[in-house]
């Protein structure tokens, strides 16, 4: 009987591990896609001719 425990542990962790990794990957991919689309929505303006006040851009942390 004892061997079966190890077989189950073996299969469980390996196949379970793969499943968990796939789920994590799926979530990371969804987050990245949402982030990408949120940036893309803002219409791309061309560089304005007139000198604009240097906008304190949030990006420069």
């Amino acid at each position, binding site marked *: 009987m004892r061997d079966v425990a190890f077989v189950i542990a073996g299969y469980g962790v390996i196949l379970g591990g793969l499943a968990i990794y796939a789920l994590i990957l799926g979530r990371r991919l969804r987050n990245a*896609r949402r982030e*990408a689309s949120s940036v893309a929505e803002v219409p791309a303006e061309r560089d304005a001719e007139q000198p604009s006040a240097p906008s304190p851009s949030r990006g420069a942390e």
Partner: protein
Amino acid sequence: MPLTIYVSPRAAGAVEPQTPAVATVELARLFGRSAALAGVSLRVQAGRTVALLGANGAGKTTLLRILATAIRPSFGTARVDGIDVAERPDQVRGRVAYLSHATGLYDDLTGAENLRFAATLLAVPAPEREERIAETLATIGLTGMAAERVRNFSAGMRKRLALGRVLLASPTLVLLDEPHAALDEAGMQLVDALLAAWREAGITTLVASHALDRLQPFIDGSVRLESGVVAEIAGSGVEPNPEPRGAIGLPVGTGASV
């Protein structure tokens, strides 16, 4: 003060006259969060001496390091004598001599040994190597320190030795990062003499410096950088690069199905 500038065969006439010694298109370089260079398009004619001005952090050193192939551009391109620094850095290195803040000398070697090491790697022919080393030491006024270890050199002496290495290189393009800094009056006069000699020998020189008044008699033109972009261009020999600006080639490849 004996001053002989060796014009290597490569330098003289190796490039058609109208090819600019330096040509950058939208050159940009980012370090983590900050944009050291944010799109610089310049052209420097061959044989000219141009001052590179601007406050600290304006991008002077970054521009010099890219041209010297010490660092790669993040965006845009830079060409020395028509050779792209990112694609053929090995060819560019043969034509450029770069005096940086960090002298890159070995503390445990003597002055002469450092120059001998440099001469070997710069492929100075063996028969004339010792003679050129002695001559260079005389030019930079360090003959007395030849047998002294560089560990005991003052900052000024280290800079002179680094200048000696530039002399050994016989380049077509000389890049100097604040050459006058840390030098005494005699040292500064040495730099002035070298600038005049390089100009007269038709070797293009780019000098990043704050000592504009001292440089004035030796330069053909100047360009001032501000936060990584060209703020002002004066004199001759340097002009904005009209080459098609277009998009900054995003080096990530295209066609990624997301």
